[in-house]
Every structure is written in structure tokens, then in C-alpha cells.
């Protein structure tokens, strides 16, 4: 019996071995080291010296830190709701059974698939620059140019609006959610005389709350970690740091100035912020997320 257990353990650890090894070497050890480095003046070339809370003091006094936080929060609080509502709208429209619906879905999801690439970020930069394609269309129509990217008041909002283009991932998750809603609910609501908006408010929305919750958590985490869009669409954080995202700041501190201790402190602040918002969303979920399928899932 004991031999059996030993063999079983051996086989189990053999199969999860690759992950376990990577987990120890590339997650556990780095997390511990990173926590340590956050309290040191490590600069990659010298030895780390313990400086206590100095990095965190410096960080909270840094204007750049607050600016990057302001940019990232503005982005998160505007782009996530905008992104989710447009994705939901798209999912509801693409859930209607009409001819060619598969084709439409394919086209509307495509941007999400290519959207993380730098090529797409470069595309936006070329389209929206001062002499870019969009401005040449505006001029052709007899309208005024818009300074999308090189105006400190516009650049962040331009980047936020662009996020609507990649609504596909959230849209597919919503579509999957919509298809789980039993048609009978709508039918009986219709019999009871509920109008389209009422049915949306009383059936669609509550039934979708688990999916909205999922998209919300993923959206917040994703928004806090934006890099490529901020780094490429408006070069290196935009004019006067108007689109200087938190991770750009972290990247430059770590790998441009090699302030690696300081950058580790920045990383931990980022982690705490993400943890805070994730826990907040989870805690609040009890108030608004409606789980109808719990029983079904459990019996699986």
C-alpha cells in the first residue's frame, strides 16, 4: 500500500514537474527576491543595500508616480465600462439569429485577436497622427484637424476610445453567457407583457451578472497593466507624460535607469492595487452577481 502511494506521488510529480519546477524557479524565488529588493537600492551592477522604506517614501513623493497612477486609473475607470458596455451591445446584436451571423461575428472578433500586437498600435499611431489618415479624411470633408495624439488633453482619451475596437474577447464571453439564458424566460416575460427594455433589465442583465463580473475583473487587471498601447500609440507615454502608464514608468525605472530596487517597490504597489480591486470586486459580487447555475455546476 505504501509502495502504491509512493509510486502514485512519483507519477503525479513527474507529470506536473515542468510546471512545479518553473513555479519554484520563476515564481516563488522571484517573488521573494522582488519583495527583498523593494527595500534595497539595488541597481543591477552593484550589491543591494538595505534601505528600509526609502523606496516607498521616494515613490509617494514622486510626481511621475502620481502622474502615471492618474493616467492608469483614468484609463481603467473610463475604458473598462466603455469596453464592457460596447461589448455587451455587440454581443446582443450578434446573438440575433439572422443570415450571415457567423461571418459578422468573425469580423467583429478579428480586432481582438490582432489587437495586442505592436503592429496594431503602430497602425493607430499612423492613422491618428497630426498628418495621419483620419485627419486627411477630416480635411477632405471640409472639417478641422483634431490633434488626437499630440495634445495633452486628448491623447489619453484617444487611447481609451481605441479600446472599443478590441471589444471582441469580452463580446465572445458575453455571447457565451447570452446563449446560456433559457429562451422560456423571455417567452413567458413576453406573455406577461414585458417590453424589450424590461426584458433586458429583468432577465438579460441579472442572468449575465456572473459573466459581467468575470469580464470586470479581467478588465481591471488588464487595464492596470497596459504597456504597448501607451508606449507605442503615443510614443513613450505621450506629450508631457499625458499617457504615461504605470507599467511604462516601471519599465523605464527598471531597464532604462536600472533603479531595480525602486522598480521592485513599484511592482509591489501595482500588485497591491490589483489585489485591492480584485478583492473589492469579489466582495461586492455577493451584492449583485446572480448565480443560477450553481446547482448544475455542482452536480457535474
Amino acid at each position: 500500500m505504501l509502495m502504491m502511494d509512493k509510486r502514485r506521488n512519483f507519477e503525479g510529480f513527474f507529470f506536473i514537474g515542468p510546471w512545479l519546477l518553473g513555479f519554484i524557479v520563476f515564481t516563488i524565488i522571484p517573488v521573494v527576491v522582488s519583495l527583498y529588493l523593494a527595500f534595497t537600492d539595488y541597481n543591477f551592477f552593484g550589491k543591494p543595500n538595505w534601505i528600509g522604506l526609502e523606496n516607498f517614501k521616494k515613490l509617494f513623493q514622486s510626481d511621475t508616480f502620481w502622474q502615471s497612477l492618474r493616467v492608469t486609473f483614468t484609463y481603467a475607470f473610463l475604458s473598462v465600462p466603455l469596453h464592457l458596455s460596447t461589448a455587451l451591445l455587440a454581443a446582443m446584436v450578434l446573438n440575433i439569429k439572422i443570415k450571415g451571423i457567423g461571418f459578422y461575428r468573425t469580423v467583429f472578433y478579428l480586432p481582438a485577436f490582432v489587437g495586442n500586437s505592436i503592429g496594431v498600435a503602430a497602425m493607430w499611431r499612423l492613422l491618428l497622427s497630426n498628418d495621419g489618415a483620419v485627419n486627411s479624411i477630416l480635411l477632405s470633408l471640409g472639417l478641422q484637424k483634431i490633434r488626437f495624439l499630440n495634445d495633452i488633453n486628448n491623447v489619453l482619451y484617444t487611447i481609451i476610445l481605441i479600446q472599443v475596437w478590441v471589444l471582441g474577447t469580452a463580446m465572445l464571453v458575453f455571447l457565451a453567457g447570452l446563449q446560456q439564458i433559457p429562451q422560456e424566460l423571455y417567452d413567458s416575460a413576453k406573455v406577461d407583457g414585458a417590453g424589450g427594455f424590461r426584458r433586458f433589465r429583468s432577465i438579460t442583465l441579472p442572468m449575465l451578472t456572473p459573466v459581467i463580473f468575470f469580464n470586470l475583473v479581467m478588465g481591471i487587471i488588464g487595464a492596470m497593466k497596459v504597456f504597448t498601447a501607451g508606449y507605442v500609440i503615443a510614443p513613450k507615454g505621450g506629450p508631457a507624460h499625458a499617457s504615461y502608464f504605470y507599467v511604462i514608468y516601471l519599465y523605464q525605472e527598471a531597464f532604462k535607469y536600472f533603479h531595480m530596487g525602486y522598480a521592485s517597490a513599484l511592482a509591489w504597489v501595482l500588485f497591491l492595487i490589483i489585489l485591492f480591486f480584485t478583492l473589492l470586486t469579489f466582495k461586492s459580487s455577493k451584492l449583485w452577481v446572480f448565480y443560477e447555475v450553481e446547482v448544475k455546476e455542482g452536480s457535474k
Partner: protein
Amino acid sequence: MKYSSRLILKYKHAVLHILLIFFMGIFIFPLFWLFTSTFKPVNTIFRIPFEWLPEKWTLENIITGWNFFPGVSFTRLYMNTMYVTIVAVVATIFTASMVAFGFARLNFKGKKYLFIALLATMMLPSQVTLVPTYVIFKYLHLLDTLPALYIGAFFGGGAFYIFLIRQFIMGLPIEMDESAQLDGASTFRIFLQIIFPLCQPVLLTVFVFSFADNYSDFFTPLVFLNTVTKFTVPVGINMFLDDAGAGNVGAVIAMTTLSIIPLIIMYFFAQKQFMQGISTTGLKG
């Protein structure tokens, strides 16, 4: 009554089609512009009035762009990218399914806690481990090498893929494993000859996403690579954007277009498969 309601439905659908085509046009326009501008002579790209299709088609932008960097053509960058992407994807598929099989089918000490740890790593922003990883790579002599970009794939390739495959294996009937075991098959054979082939649908999803992830990864090579001859396409494009500036817009556009094409091909190749895959298995950030 019945006739007129059908007419209304038809009318509604027509309006819907018009709306969808309108928005589809807006969605596709950026890519359409990028692709057509690739073939426009440089001086007409931003011309007013706006030119929908090139008046004169030219390959000049592609040729200038391809050889723009002295000593390093895009051939090199694409070779680097393809090498990294292929190794990473193949390694991910094998190690992720091994690990997934372990978590789905085998029993071992601490499995529950290790699985929670696996899920928890999805919540951990990679920025936290970034600096120490850089230092570890220095000691492993991986800085400024291509293996720095794919080594992670040999360790399961990311919690998300492991989770996805594990969910899929959980849905396969356990009776197959049991009868194979009675016939004397070893655990390894059960994995390799029964489970692995049956995982084909989910592995295709993993293939497509890890291809796209690795192919378009910009941050990792930006951090770990310094030498231009080792660059992948995304860092090459970034350097191009910085260096070329306004003078070579045509070449920048051409290289940008080319960099997106492999993704679009991949998308249409696997579109049907993973549209279903994602709507049944859910997620992907």
C-alpha cells in the same frame, strides 16, 4: 396579421444588416487603410483628398522597409520570430498538457494546494517577478539570447493554458483510462496514446492563442534583447517607428502591414474552431 408581422421581421432584419455592415466598415477601415497604403507611393499616402485605393500600385514601400536597417533585413527578424514562436508553441503544447493531465487524472500529495497555487499565479502581475527574473537570466547567461523568450514555455507555458486543458481532460470519460490500466498500460502510455490525441480540439485552441501571444510579444524581447540581429519583429517595428520617423512613413506602414498578416492568416485558419472553443470554455484576457 401573420403576413404583416413577417414583413416587419424582414424589414427589421434588413435594417440590422445595414447597421452591421456600416459598423463592420468602421471596424475594418483601419486595417483596410493600412493594407492599401502599403501599396501607395509615399507621397500619396496622406494626400488630400483622401485616396481609398492606390491610384498607382507599388512595391517600393515593402522593398525599402524590408532592408531599412543596415546589415539586418527583416528576413532575419522574421526568422528569429518564427524560431521563437515555433519552439514556444510546441513546448507549451507538450508541457501544458502533461501538467494538465497530472492535475486532472493523477492523485498525489498536496495536489489541491498546488492547483490553487497554479490558479493564484494567474492573478500575480508578471511585473512583480520581472526584475528578479532578469537577474536570474543573467546568471543563466540568457540575457540577450533568444531562449530567454521561450524558456518559460518549457515549464507549462502559463497557468491559463494548463487550466484550459485540465478542464477539457476533466470532461473526458475516466472509463477509458481505467480499462487501459486494466490492460496493463502505464500512466505515461495512457497520457500519450489516449488522452493526448483526444485533447486535439483544446490543443488547437492553445496552439492558436500561444502562437498569437508569442508572435506578438513585445514586452519580453524589449526587456531581454539588446542586439539588433537577435530582435524579433515586434521590437524591430518599434525600433523602426523610433528611427524612421516621418521620412519613411511608407516603409513603416509596409512593415507594419506585413507583421499583422501572419496573425490574420492564423485567425482565418482556425477561426471556426476556436470561436466554438472560446464560447464553450469561456475566457482569455
